[in-house]
């Protein structure tokens, strides 16, 4: 009697968990579709002729939109600016943050605590848009692509990530390198940087994505210097001026 009951109970459990598993899978498929379908829609819009109602497949298939966008000189220029900003900005930011993290990862580095507070303040408080703009303007950086790179060099969160990664590395390699006569710069580039590749790679990815997507700096600092507009701001202006199929095409390309 007792035994039968447990078996029956066990069967119920198995049935319950397989129902749970099926329902769970179905809901996750729906969620994945919700995440994916908007991209399908914009792709369809980009491949369609004007004047159709478009859901998730192209209507009146055409490559005209792509051709049009690819022939647009301003589009390529914006793309070039974006690449320039992402490559230079990421390299500069990651190297500067890595160097600082290297120094700050030493427990006995002078004023270590004070310097960390100094950087954390940067993370949680800012002068605001107008003062930021005035500093950039006073330095003569406004209307130049440097305004898209230099103000975002200090990424405190990345500094903290790299610093804690370096603190976790074994110190022996660094020591033996310095016994072999390597200076700090050599240690940083030849020992620590290769050893912390996983961390540096993910931090670089974050920084690159942030720089590629960011349009606020361009909006604030570039003013009328349209030749330096990055792709994000170029598309935003395009969407605002003529919300049609072509903007969809640009989004696909991005």
């Amino acid at each position, binding site marked *: 009697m007792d035994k039968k009951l447990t078996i029956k109970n066990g069967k119920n459990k198995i049935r319950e968990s397989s129902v749970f598993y099926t329902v769970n899978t179905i809901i*996750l498929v729906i969620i994945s579709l919700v995440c994916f379908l908007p991209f399908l*829609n914009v792709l369809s819009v980009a491949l369609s002729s004007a004047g159709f109602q*478009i859901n998730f497949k192209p209507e009146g298939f055409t490559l005209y939109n792509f051709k049009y966008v690819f022939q647009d000189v301003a589009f390529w220029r914006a793309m070039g600016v974006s690449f320039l900003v992402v490559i230079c900005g990421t390299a500069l930011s990651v190297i500067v943050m890595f160097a600082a993290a290297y120094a700050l990862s030493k427990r*006995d580095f*002078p004023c270590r605590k004070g310097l960390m507070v100094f950087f954390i303040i940067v993370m949680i*408080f800012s002068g605001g848009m107008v003062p930021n703009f005035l500093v950039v303007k006073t330095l003569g950086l406004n209307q130049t692509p440097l305004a898209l790179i230099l103000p975002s060099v*200090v990424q405190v969160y990345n500094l903290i990530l790299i610093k804690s990664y370096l603190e976790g590395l074994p110190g022996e390699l660094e020591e033996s390198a310095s016994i072999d006569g390597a200076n700090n710069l050599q240690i940083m580039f030849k020992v620590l940087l290769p050893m912390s590749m996983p961390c540096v790679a993910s931090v670089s990815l974050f920084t690159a994505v942030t720089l590629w*997507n960011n349009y606020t700096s361009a909006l604030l600092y570039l003013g009328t210097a349209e030749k330096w507009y990055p792709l994000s701001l170029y598309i935003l202006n395009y969407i605002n001026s003529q919300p049609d199929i072509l903007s969809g095409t640009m989004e696909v390309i991005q």
Partner: protein
Amino acid sequence: MSSRKNKLTLVDKTKKYKSLIPFVIPAVLFALVFSYLPMVGILIAFKDHPNFLRYEVFEAFSKSKWTLANFEKLFSDPDILKYIGNTLIISVMKIVILFPLPVILAVMITELRSKKFSKLVQGLVFLPHFFSWVVIVGIFNNIFGMYGPINNIGSALGMDPVHFMGEPGWVRWLVVILSGWKEIGYSSIAYIAAIMSIDPALYEAAKIDGAGKFKQIWKITIPSIMPTIIVMLIIRIGYLMDAGFEQVYAMLNPNTLETGEIIGTYVYRLGFLAGSTDYGLSTAVGLFNGVISLLLILGANYISKKKTGNGVW
């Protein structure tokens, strides 16, 4: 040995790491110039209409009078109060509606049995995070557009088409929906990591005791990741005054300013758009926002550290 280490004086430390000091200097300089120098510029909030368009920065600064009028206006102008209200409403909507969803998603993803399917789902739900707000707003302009899929489905069901992006009544909901679509997947990473680190023996024991799936989730998974949930919630509340400038600015149009304008976009409009420029007021509003945010973040971090032992720093 270790006690001697702690007793190193500043001079000893400096001697020991003399050659490392240049490594921290570039970062300090960048922070001083691009973050601390603007903080001095906050003084502009106490100036009466400085004209930076006409004069050089320092000349414009010294030519304008000191005043508290900007702050008086900040606390009395009905428009500004409305925008502060919009900011709070949008932020609270985002927290109440969106905060629990990544937790649920993480639980669901970790309950999947097939590793491949789980990776696929994770890939798809993380994807939107990597796109610019500009692109996402553009995509949803189509989706919610007059001839987009949503209105197509609506008209198939016999409803009148709605111009969602231009309706003051819809804009806050759309801000929440788009923000959720972009960030829920990515926010679930922290919870997925937390769930992965739960000891599987707990679930084995629960199964032997005859606990079903829901009971296991409710009694083991959720309590185990509660510290993570609490830290995330406190940090999120710390950013209450930030309703998302990049998102909202890309979404707003003249029709939806009334219900959609937030402090960030208003500060931008006052400081940078021709016709309504008022640098003093813009800086004052920004300062007000910044100070409240600072207090909230410091408070949140303090509570988080005290309650759970973890903070952002």
